[in-house]
């Protein structure tokens, strides 16, 4: 309800918050970020899901462009659906990055399986690039489905020299199956601004050995 100031003063219910999963390239760990309410205040709690990470990657929502992450402020994104011309770099603090939606498997999902994943580290981007290329090569054999991906491991990647050297960990993602597309959120505008198609792809009944059990994903 609007008050005398002309805008709401009640605490946010957090309804518009899109939960996230992030890969910490410096530690080589995958974290599910849970938003926990404590007496009306929300705090973010990082839950390490490196060992159990398994998710449907909705590469149809993949966006690329510029991102700026800094502690204490909301991240800033200037992205376009992949395949489009990248926008101009908003500032020299913005880095190249990608963002897409995933659905975590029950074993690692917490109470919010559908999440956003984004990152700018070279290690993260290289890991995503490798599995995205594999996805593009195989997707036509799995019409209407999305890849189910696990984090098979990480590879240390050193950069710099001397005091300026550092080690990041590149994730190795592996496609272990394919699952029905479903709805993983993340509205991506069509490149030409046209309204969404309804679907004209004729499909057969699913083959038992082709589909990852939907039970894994609640």
């Amino acid at each position, binding site marked *: 309800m609007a008050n005398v100031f002309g805008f709401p003063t009640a605490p946010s219910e957090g*309804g*518009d918050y899109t939960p996230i999963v992030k890969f910490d390239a410096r530690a080589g760990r995958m974290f599910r970020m849970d938003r926990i309410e404590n007496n009306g205040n929300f705090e973010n709690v990082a839950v390490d899901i490196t060992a159990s990470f398994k998710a449907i990657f909705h590469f149809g929502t993949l966006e690329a462009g510029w991102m700026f992450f800094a502690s204490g402020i909301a991240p800033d994104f200037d992205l376009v659906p992949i395949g489009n011309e990248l926008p101009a770099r908003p500032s020299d603090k913005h880095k190249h990055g990608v963002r897409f939606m995933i*659905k975590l498997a029950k074993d690692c999902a917490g109470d919010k*399986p*559908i999440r956003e994943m984004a990152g700018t580290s070279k290690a993260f981007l290289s890991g995503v690039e490798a599995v995205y290329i594999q996805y593009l090569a195989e997707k036509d054999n799995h*019409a*209407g489905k999305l890849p189910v991906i696990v984090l098979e491991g990480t590879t240390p990647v050193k950069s710099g020299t001397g005091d300026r050297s550092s080690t990041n960990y590149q994730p190795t993602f592996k496609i272990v199956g394919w*699952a*029905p*597309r*479903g*709805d*993983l*959120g*993340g*509205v991506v505008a069509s490149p030409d601004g046209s309204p*969404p*198609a*309804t*679907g*004209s*792809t*004729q*499909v*057969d*009944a*699913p083959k038992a050995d082709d*589909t990852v*059990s*939907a*039970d894994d*994903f*609640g």
Partner: protein
Amino acid sequence: MTAENLTKALRGRRAGAGSMTHPFNAPAGCSDVIKYDHHSASSTSLFCASPAMWVAEKLLGLRQPVGAPAHRGIAIEDGVTHGLVNPASSLAECVKVAVIKFDTLMAVSPDVRRERYRETISSMVSQALAELRPYGVPSGVQGRVEWKPDGLRLPVIGFYDFEWAQHGIIVDLKTTEKLPPQIKISQARQAAFYASSDNMAARLTYVTPSKCETYELENIHEHREALRQIAMRIENFLALSDDPEFFKSITVPDLESFYWGGPTARQLAFEHWGV
């Protein structure tokens, strides 16, 4: 005057029938209070297609009779459901379930298309079962789905036809005379809403007297958002007044449209809207 009413209503003061320049009479059978307490996919589609018919059915309580095509759809769904949940049942048994249902629903219907539609039931049940039995036994049939997204005062409620949780797929069965080349937009919204129950993939199976095809629904999120957008418009519309009669003053039937083509609807338009 109507514009004035709208302005008042949009300022928070709800208009009433008494504020109309030429109040309509209140024909017998009309509801005098609005009982619209939830949205459905079909309601939102009707609102888009014919706001006046939506007013007649949802606010005045004047439900229009349905004919042989709709009754055949229900009957075929019953026969197919029987065949899916009882995989050992014979086709003849499933067809019998459908025909009995059709005859029951059509018992007092004056629709002259009765026999023509009845004759197609066997073929349509057969084709639909051939299409859907390979999915296995469904984990759910006629499952209730309720969705209350941000921005809506009322929930959206509906019932999907078939769910295969083992495949993560919901299928809605549509009976039609002609196979569409793609999923119809209103049906895309409906299936997208059903898929919200547990983040499922959604498919629509269209069966005609001679063909049957299943299409994969694309852009589920966008179509469900479209449903929400329409429902929001309905709630904005309803906010104009508590009085069902008021809504006759701001809508008018299109007598050339499918919705007002039948003699009952035509009479309704004349009695309630004076057209």
